[in-house]
């Protein structure tokens, strides 16, 4: 449980756009232990998906900067060529479940062949063999084996999600990136999928890199929470600490915005709009919206302060050890 399976150091991913450089991932350092699940939360457009894509190296054409260090299972993937990365890392060590599972299935491939695709590609397996494995993988995620002959359009959203999960699992990777895996599903199906993911994690010792904008949902699965804002990680804390006592003002605001079921508390919102990734604010990126911002926040970018027991926060409030227990 103490081995780092994924480590990013100073990961930078900038895109070129017409208006300027989009700083989607701006010097992120993050690590994931074996068997751990990390939830990456943040508002839309804060660079969550870009971070995931930077890790699995699925880059669009308009890359401006892409550097830093990524260690997957001890291997420095930034040194691998595109071909090596494709053959050795993707799906062998790290796989990904995409946002909107309904659209990530090839509409003209039968489900069985779709699930078998990674095997055909990576392990050069024979079709029949791969199909057998696909059947097993489908039954693991709770889909009847006979469904291998169906086309994606014949499945419901939840089923497609399961199929995509089966596809991510079929090559037994150590890490799975889940990019909003349940965002398009209803609550019941969401719960089913979350239970499935939990079960798989327990059975197989998988590490999840779980991207969501739903803090409540992240509590279901996460051992560790990372809060992202404007391309930077603002706070990382274990789930226990985070839900009880978030440190960063942004995290506090996020927690306050979650509606509660039984108390009479009104959900709060954060004034202002998310920071532009093209022209980010000076100093702390959150200062224009931060209720506790002071002069220093506007001028200088805060470093990451260690609040003890792996709790990290990027806020000047903690410079002198404020807020520490």
């Amino acid at each position, binding site marked *: 449980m103490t081995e780092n399976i994924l480590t990013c150091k100073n990961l930078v991913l900038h895109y070129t756009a017409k208006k300027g450089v989009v700083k989607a991932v701006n010097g992120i350092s993050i690590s994931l232990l074996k068997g751990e699940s990390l939830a990456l939360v943040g508002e839309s457009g804060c660079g969550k998906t870009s971070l995931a894509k930077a890790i699995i190296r699925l880059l669009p054409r308009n890359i401006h900067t892409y550097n830093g260090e990524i260690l997957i299972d001890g291997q420095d993937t930034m040194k691998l060529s595109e071909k090596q990365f494709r053959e050795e890392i993707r799906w062998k060590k790290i796989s990904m479940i*995409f946002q909107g599972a309904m659209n*990530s299935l*090839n509409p003209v*491939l039968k489900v069985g062949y779709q699930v078998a695709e*990674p095997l055909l*590609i990576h392990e050069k397996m024979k079709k029949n063999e791969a199909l057998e494995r696909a059947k097993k993988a489908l039954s693991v995620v709770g889909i009847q084996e006979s469904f291998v*002959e*169906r086309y994606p359009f014949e499945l419901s959203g939840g089923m497609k999600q399961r199929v995509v999960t089966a596809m991510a699992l079929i090559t037994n990777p150590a890490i799975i990136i889940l990019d909003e895996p349940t965002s398009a599903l209803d609550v019941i199906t969401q719960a089913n999928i979350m239970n499935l993911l939990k079960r798989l994690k327990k059975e197989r010792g998988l590490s999840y890199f779980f991207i969501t904008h739903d803090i409540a949902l992240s509590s279901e699965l996460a051992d560790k929470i990372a809060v992202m804002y404007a391309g930077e990680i603002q706070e990382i804390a274990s789930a226990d600490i985070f839900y009880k006592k978030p440190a960063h003002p942004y995290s506090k605001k996020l927690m306050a915005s979650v509606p509660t079921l039984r108390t009479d508390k009104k959900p709060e919102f954060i004034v202002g709009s998310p920071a532009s990734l093209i022209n980010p604010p000076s100093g702390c990126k959150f200062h224009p919206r931060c209720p506790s911002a002071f002069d220093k926040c506007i001028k200088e970018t805060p470093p990451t302060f260690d609040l003890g027991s792996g709790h990290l926060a990027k806020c000047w409030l903690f410079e002198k050890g404020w807020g520490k227990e």
Partner: protein
Amino acid sequence: MSSESYEFTIKGTIKELLTYKSGIFGIAFFILLVILSFYTIVALPYDQTIRLWRGEGGVWLETPRTAQPYWVNYFGQNLPETIKRDSSQSGQSGVIKIITPIPDTNMKVARISFTFDFSYDSFPSEINIFFSAKYNENSPFLNIYWVKPDGNEIKLLTYIPRSQNDKLYLSINPEVKSALNLYVYNVLGGAPESPLPPEYSLFAVEDASMNSTSTAKPLKGTYKLYIDGTLFGEDSNIDAKLIVYGKVYGIAGTDNQRRDLTIGLLWGIPIALAFGLTASFVITFLDLLLATISGYYGGKTDSLIQRITEFYMILPFLPVLIMISTFYKLDLGVLLAVVIALSIFGGGIKSTRALVMQIKEYPYIEAAKAYGASSKRIVFLYIIPKILPPIIPTLIGAVPTFVFLEAALAILGLGIPNLPSWGKIINDSFGNGALYKGNYYWVLEPAFLLIFTSLAFSFIGFALDKIVNPKLREV
């Protein structure tokens, strides 16, 4: 399960096609064409056809020139069919051949007589006699007589064959002509308004109507032609074959070179199908492939393919083809290759590329990249199958275009030279003034087959279009 996904299999597609009337017609027409093609290839092998179509060895000597198909007689006409009498074939009715040696000499007296019934409303088109004589030094000495049903006898000519297998063209022989002119002069008591051709004089009713070709009527009844001759030599012999050429022949008629059009029309089917299908399939698929590569890879590849396409789009098709045909001998393969080469970078590339550029941004393509699918795999397994369905009806619908193109090129003289095709038949008929002379069948038959073929593919295309574009379905 199978019923839910059946529409994706070939069997399922055909099943669904058959739910549309146009699909039923299209498939029925297509199957008929395919059966006829196979029949043609088996029954009339390629080499034999080429020999027949070139008319090697006088194979068409015994068929009438520009004869209409025989079935025109079912539409109230009574045009003569070809009548053959051959003395070398024993036992043929209407043929008597007697050869008696003259005692104490090495000479023989021969008498060959042919009788036949003629009960048509029109005159024959030609009359020929083919001799095969056997002699040592001196050719036989023959007198040829013609007996009409009313008993009038005409001596046509005295004839000495100049070779073993001589041909006597009665219709154009000057001696016969003058003998008949004299005969007509005697019957009418003066010269006719317009000189009657021999086949008219031989068959006409002997009254005032003989005055001109427009009023002359054939006399119905039993005619007789007999040859009295003297043969010289111990083992001398003579045989003759009388052919009274009709005005109808076969299912399709004949052209000006006496060739049976059936052969040309039948061979047109496999040629049209092969040309249309090959051109359409190859062009559509290469188009698709190029467009997908262009759209998916983008960048320099895209620019290159797009610039080539634009260059090809302004290239004039016909002049280039004419230029090529002047430098190279065209045959089916070369013609296909040239047409394909000139058409692959077509306008289709532009629209398909636009589609590909849209599809390549779909999440499932990104997912495929994530699980390590190579670009080649994505192009062939993810993008092309996705854009294929709407292209199939277009592909089928494009077949007639290429069938017509082949015909049009043949009419322009850019056809396949050695093989008969529909276009070439139309070209021949055109060159020989078929429409001016009233030989409509010669033009209409290949035209009908062209339309039939095009209908077959268009019907299938319409039905397929309804299947892949459900919006077009009637409610």
